């Protein structure tokens, strides 16, 4: 049963990811992106990582994508008003994404598929285990990440102020 759900989710996910790129209207590709986030959350649930799945939805679908939706709706982006990109920009985009593809392939090449354990039985994604690991083994990176967030917030508030008096 799990394997059918996995294939169903994967097909939906790949379809919506492609539609993100193919859609003509900015808002449609944004909605496809949100849909692909939900399918990704479904994959997390299949791996018994419910906490990750829900946090993924809260943070990405619930917060970040709402902001994106805001800006796309208010800017009203569409094909007619878009300025055509220069040749150099296109070339740079192709090279950058090509490099990313090579990195991903080389990372996945060494991965031995036959040795995977039945991962859906693992308890590593539960809140208790995740909390214990975050607050013992990974305490320092966790705290540093929070400092990073604070600095980003302070920066955003600073930039958003009307009068800048340094």
């Amino acid at each position: 049963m799990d394997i059918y759900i996995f294939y169903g989710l994967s097909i939906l996910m790949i379809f919506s990811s492609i539609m993100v790129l193919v859609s003509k209207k900015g808002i449609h590709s944004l909605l496809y992106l949100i849909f692909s986030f939900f399918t990704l959350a479904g994959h997390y649930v299949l791996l018994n990582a419910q906490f990750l799945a829900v946090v993924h939805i809260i943070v990405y679908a619930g917060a970040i994508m709402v902001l994106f939706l805001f800006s796309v709706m208010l800017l009203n982006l569409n094909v007619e008003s878009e300025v055509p990109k220069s040749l150099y920009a296109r070339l740079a985009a192709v090279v950058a994404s090509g490099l990313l593809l090579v990195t991903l392939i080389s990372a996945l090449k060494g991965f031995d598929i036959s040795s995977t354990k039945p991962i859906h039985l693992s308890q590593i994604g539960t809140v208790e285990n995740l909390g214990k690991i975050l607050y013992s083994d990974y305490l320092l990176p966790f705290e540093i990440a929070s400092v990073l967030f604070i600095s980003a917030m302070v920066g955003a508030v600073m930039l958003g102020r009307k009068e800048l008096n340094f």
Partner: protein
Amino acid sequence: MDANFFIYKLILIAAILGLSLLVAMYATLLERKLAAFFQDRLGPNRAGKWGLLQPLADGVKLFFKEEFIPASADKFLYVLGPSLSMLVALLTSAVIPWGPSINIGGTEYALQVANVNIGVLYLFAIVSIGVYGIMIGGWASNNKYALLGAVRASSQMISYELALGLSIVALVMTSGSLNLSEIVNQQDGFKWNIFYQPLGFIIFLICAFAETNRAPFDLPECETELIGGYHTEYSSMKLGFYLFAEYINMFVSGAIIATLFLGGYDFPGIDQLGLSQNALAAAGFLVLFAKISFIIFLFMWIRWTLPRFRYDQLMKLGWKKLLPLAVLNIILTGFISLLMQ
């Protein structure tokens, strides 16, 4: 997963769906009756005895209205908007424990569709995606009032989501669990969370009003400024879905408040009645239902008593009052629970 279990869950889902729709239907009648009472009128009393058939008449009226899609609207998103609103409103009821477990033929069945470990976070996730239905509908209408209403609605919901989430954090700190049925079991015997988290309860209640877009926070559909807000262009059953989703949201948030703060299906002395297990489950469900009804009444009571906020007042209340209060509540909760140890 055996077949019995599967069939039981399907029946439970259908029952909860039916119940939500029925309650939402009659909540519309109750709202109009209460409004009439507060304004010294009679209210609807023509359709059936005491107007009991009024919701049906309203439904028939909405169904037979002309189905109209504006020419410049984005057709697919225009239909998607109300559907999403309805879907999200109904999704939340999946994790609410509706009563103690029942016993059918020697097997225990929980009166809860999904007993997930992260029930509280699930609730929060659903709340955070609740904004899409309104935003998509308002944008797809291609109408400036609808767009302004949608933008207002979403900024209001995002602002109040923060204080809502922080008030739940303090609750989770005292209960030590994210599992909703465990939170209810901990409140057994009149140890309701409202006594331990009074400030959190008030913050949660206010935010629930804002999240359901009910007065005094109904700015997204503020008629005097925005015609009808995000559903200006909608007609027929699509408008009906938007309006109906509000009542379902009210029912579900009543259930959430009762579960998190008012002890769920617990009532002092319910164990001493000497009831059999199934009768106890029924009694527990009735108790929960009474609590939900009271909260729905509270929603309506406030709507017909308080005037609407101004938009800047709304934002000031959310960001400058409720958010610091919620943070203070977390700090106080942590401090007191450290002292109690």
